């Protein structure tokens, strides 16, 4: 190629290179915005799940009664066992709780500090089948009304995200 031809093609090459750079930049920006948006949505959803967990421990169906009710994050073990049993066996009731609890899986795990073991109790399960789930947790005191023992427990909400 002669020097004259190269000089003629120079503006065209510059335009092509700039266009490629702009397209690459645009694609990167779009992708980054989408990633950021989905991260933000997941975080906001986690905050909502946390608020739901706090509401859950104050539901009359689960919350401690009597002097222990002064503790905001206290779950009554007998109530929780009854709630889990009723919900599991009654589809209509599960549908009735759907507006409050949504498409989630709720579990109460109670730790036995003496034995070092823990017991998980499925409180409610209306989760959708998905390959990826996100869990949000809060810790609660669990009152066993039969013995009066207060145990260390954890409420976990699991939601399908894809």
């Amino acid at each position: 190629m002669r020097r004259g031809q190269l000089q003629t093609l120079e503006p065209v090459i510059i335009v092509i290179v700039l266009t490629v750079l702009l397209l690459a930049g645009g694609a990167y920006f779009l992708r980054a915005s989408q990633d950021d948006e989905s991260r933000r949505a997941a975080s906001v959803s986690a905050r909502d799940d946390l608020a739901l967990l706090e509401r859950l421990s104050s539901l009359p169906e689960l919350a401690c009664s009597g002097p222990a009710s002064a503790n905001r994050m206290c779950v009554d073990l007998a109530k929780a066992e009854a709630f889990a049993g009723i919900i599991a066996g009654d589809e209509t009731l599960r549908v009735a709780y759907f507006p409050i609890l949504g498409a989630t899986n709720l579990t109460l795990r109670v730790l036995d500090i003496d034995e070092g073991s823990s017991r998980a109790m499925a409180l409610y399960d209306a989760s959708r089948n998905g390959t990826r789930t996100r869990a949000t947790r809060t810790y609660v005191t669990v009152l066993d009304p039969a013995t009066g023992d207060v145990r260390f427990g954890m409420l976990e909400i699991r939601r399908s995200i894809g």
Partner: protein
Amino acid sequence: MTRGQAEMIGVVAVAVLLIVGVLVYARVGGDTGGIVRSAVQEQEAESFLIALLPADVPRCGTTVEGVARACLERDTICDSADPCAELQRILDVAASSTLRRHGLRYNLSVEGTSAMALDDCESAERATLLLVRSRQEIIGSAGMPLGKGLSLAVCR
């Protein structure tokens, strides 16, 4: 102005525009998700300590806070067993059944005692990211704060 100078100014202008674009993006697209995430983790750590302290330890006839208090005040509980050894066992059990199970690294300890459950959080040898740190004061047998607390740091 020669053609070479004009092209140089053009290149500089494009570079300035790109830098301004990146700065604007970084500022507008700030990580609000991160703020929310850290609020969620903070709540999780705080609720861990609040729920653990009043939990009963039936074999000692007291609560976790009672065991911590006995350790701090050199008291005797748990059938004359060393309350600090019992406290160590409780911290290990509580942390390993929850935090470790969820893949988190942690430092759970009672200030002023040797009782601590460690899982490489804030380790100098490993690059860990401190997510949150929380603390709950331990109340003494006289009903006054002991100035020592149950402390939890959670890392990733």
